[in-house]
């Protein structure tokens, strides 16, 4: 009986708070502004994403045509002619572009040399772009918590200051019901803004859904929504907990704003600064020089051919290999050595990045926003793990392409490497570049620490709110 009374009281509190909030002109302004910003960010994000995605797909098609139509040439010349692969743009990049502006958009694959993806959009952007871009994800993870704070900071502290907290509890409302009522009262008016915004977003995403049915759009989108909801939940619980403990509502506001500022603005650069102290990145020139230095110790082309010749005379090779194929053998060997060199250096760099990111991610336990951002990028398919997966796919494609072309040279049995010309039939044997982003389950598994951190924050903040309300002073 008491439980039901408490529940209905909680509901009454929620309705009263929600109504008051809704009538408050300031809330309507703030919520309206947030809605407009989210809508603008959504529109901007979706139009930019679909435009870039189409551009990249068209470019890949054009590149394929160029590759097939390049006419007859020596297979090794074709390897020098090379191929561009363009990074496919994930549909949810419209919601969270994540690291997309900060990583290269295409890789040029060619013989002898391997490159990192080139032309990060940030290089061409106006310098002011560094101050941040409004995206649906920033609206949900940075701006929304602020609105949550504005709606919760006075929940208990305000009632206490006005002396209405004691009469409220005297009505027989349990403290837990009071907490539930206050939480609901804060979230209801928010829902009035967020549910339409989410629906608009979902509609836009659906309208621009990719043609490829393999793209796991729905699970990723739902995951993204879950992350944003959990993150908003953490801030609601934090707001209520601080409001219950704080002496005045002013103090509650200051504490919450400081927490918000630390989470949204200080933690990302600070966590990265720590990661880089621990695992410094090489400078660009050091990275390039390390590769060049190693190449310098290799024999020249002529010396290489000479050595293969000696090995041939020593009877190292099977008799089926004509002596004239010596240059081909040297070419294949140098190609293998080059691929191994670049793979090792790039793997070293990406491993270092991974270690930096691991430290960054571990630091995320200190607040709810960092893990939420990492998860949101991961689910949107725009984080560093996706970038690495693309780089790995490009590198594999390069190896496959060179293997097909070189194998053809080796099998030709011609007098010399360049005395051999092939055409479209060989170019067609190189399959078109096809890249599938990692599966959503794999994405979540990679970011298990962030999942754990966000869950811990949700549980911890809720427990803190329950405890704070159970032990709060009434006057």
């Amino acid at each position, binding site marked *: 009986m008491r439980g039901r009374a408490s529940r209905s009281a909680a509901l009454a509190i929620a309705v009263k708070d929600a109504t008051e909030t809704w009538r408050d002109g300031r809330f309507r302004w703030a919520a309206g502004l947030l809605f407009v910003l989210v809508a603008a960010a959504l529109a901007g994000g979706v139009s930019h994403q679909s435009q870039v995605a189409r551009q990249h797909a068209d470019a890949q098609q054009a*590149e394929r045509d*160029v590759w097939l139509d390049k006419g007859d*040439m020596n297979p090794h010349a074709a390897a020098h*002619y090379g191929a*561009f692969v363009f990074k496919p743009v994930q549909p949810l990049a419209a919601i969270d572009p994540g*690291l997309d502006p900060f990583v290269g958009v295409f890789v040029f694959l060619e013989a002898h040399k391997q490159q990192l993806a*080139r032309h990060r959009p940030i290089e061409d952007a106006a310098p002011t772009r560094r101050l941040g871009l409004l995206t649906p994800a920033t609206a949900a993870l940075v701006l929304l918590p602020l609105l949550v704070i504005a709606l919760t900071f006075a929940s208990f502290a305000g009632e206490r200051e006005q002396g209405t907290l004691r009469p409220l509890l005297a009505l027989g409302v349990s403290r837990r019901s009071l907490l539930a009522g206050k939480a609901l009262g804060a979230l209801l008016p928010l829902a009035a803004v967020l549910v339409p915004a989410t629906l608009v977003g979902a509609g836009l995403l659906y309208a621009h859904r990719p043609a490829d049915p393999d793209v796991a759009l729905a699970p990723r989108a739902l995951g993204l929504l879950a992350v944003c909801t959990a993150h908003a939940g953490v801030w609601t619980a934090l707001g209520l907990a601080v409001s219950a403990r704080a002496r005045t509502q002013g103090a509650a506001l200051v504490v919450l704003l400081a927490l918000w500022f630390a989470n949204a603005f200080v933690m990302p650069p600070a966590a990265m600064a720590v990661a880089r102290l621990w695992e410094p990145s090489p400078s660009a020139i050091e990275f390039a020089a390390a590769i060049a230095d190693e190449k310098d110790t290799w024999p020249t082309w002529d010396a290489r*051919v000479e050595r293969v010749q000696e090995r041939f005379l020593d009877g190292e090779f099977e008799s089926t290999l004509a002596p004239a194929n010596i240059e081909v053998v040297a070419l294949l060997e140098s190609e293998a050595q080059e691929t191994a060199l670049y793979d090792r250096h790039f793997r070293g760099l990406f491993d270092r990045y991974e270690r930096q990111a691991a430290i960054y991610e571990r630091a995320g336990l200190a607040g709810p926003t960092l893990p939420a951002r990492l998860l949101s990028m991961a689910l949107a398919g725009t984080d560093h793990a996706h970038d690495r997966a693309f780089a790995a796919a490009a590198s594999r494609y390069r190896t496959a392409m060179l293997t097909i072309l070189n194998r053809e040279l080796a099998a030709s049995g011609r007098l010399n490497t360049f005395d051999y010309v092939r055409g479209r039939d060989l170019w067609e044997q190189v399959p078109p570049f096809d890249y599938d982003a990692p599966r959503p389950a794999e994405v979540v598994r990679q970011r298990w620490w962030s999942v754990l951190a966000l869950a811990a924050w949700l549980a911890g903040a809720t427990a803190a709110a329950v405890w704070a309300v159970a032990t709060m002073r009434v006057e």
Partner: protein
Amino acid sequence: MMAFARHEWRVLARSRVTLAVLAVFVAALAISGWLGATRAAREQHTLERFEQRVAEQRARPVSLRAEAVANEKGGLALLPPAPLGALAVGQSDVYPGYLTVTARRLDALVSGDQVEHPLAVASGPFDIAFVVLFLYPLLIFATSFDLTAGERERGTLRMVLSHPVRLADVVAGKLLARALVLAGPVVILPAAVAAVTPVPAAPAALGLSLVIWTLAVLAYGAIWHGLALVVNARGWRAATNALVLAGTWLLFAVVGPATINLGIAAVYPMPSRVAAAVEARAATEAASVQGSQALGQFLQDHPTSANIGQDGMRQFAALQAARDRQMAERLAAVTASFEAQLQRQQQLASWLSVLSPAMVAQGVLLDAAGTSTTRFEHFRAAAAVFQREWAAYFEPRVLDAATLTPADVAAAPAFRYAEAPVSAMARRAAAPLAAMALAGAALLWLGFRLYRGYAL
């Protein structure tokens, strides 16, 4: 007014909130300053190491093929660390501080990408510029959301004003004391960091850069102090002031720039590198295929690379150069139109950024620090001049398939970066500085004017 300021100073010195704010501010400036000084020292070390490396390579007593020296190795152009790079990372985590030049027509200026975790670039650096742009305004608000509201509620303001003093003087004293509390660390600490960081810049130029940096910081601060004064003058309660100021900060420092960037992306999208790459591919295709066939034909005619002789090597070099020249000519048009469009869009985008004080201040601070895009463009232009010298020296030797003596290598042109005159930076900074100072002054004037109607 000075008496009030002195009095207020004593009050502030005893306030726990002020001390906490000051502690946070000093700690943030000190940590970011230390990180910056460490970074600058590492950059300087890298520069010295590679300068030495270049010198050693030139002095090596071996004869080398001209093609290998001129094109495979190439010439190294190194950008020294920025004069005040310790204060602001700026664009230095996006653009690399070196370029390799070759004597070819194609790939004449080769730059690797800056090697930096994309997450680091996205998160932004924790440098003094960040503390100045974001934390400083927030702390200005934290110290001045309650200039007079609390005293009015407690009735002490009325008491003070029963003496022959003007409200404006009382408010000015409070404002000045608060401004000084924060201006102290924000001026002194960066100057100290700059002083202890060894950089290869002329002291006079360094001094002027630091002066402009400091003026920008103070003008930027004046805008935020002005905003705080205007809000205070409206006569709300202290808690309301705090909320309104928090919203103001959010609007001007975060939402404003982020929305302007969204607008820039929508209205002035940068030209697509992807489309440009496809265009470049199409434009050079014929030349590339034709060139490859010519080279292939040559190699077919000269089956063994060992005995093609000097004449054969000359022919080969000529064929290669001809292909490069043809491709470069076709590429030039595509590149030029891309660059022109990029420049136009960036020009247009820069107009929108005058709407945000944070964006204007960022521009001046990075320019003064030497980590703005401008300095990297200047470096690129200098490297392009170096490339022409390099090509003029090596191209004939490459076409001659010459073998270079150590003396030839030692006599090759070397890159020496000449910093752009600091006066050019000062001229660029003048207008935004004046605009910020004017905006700050206007807001302060408006604040005092509104205070005339302040109801006690």
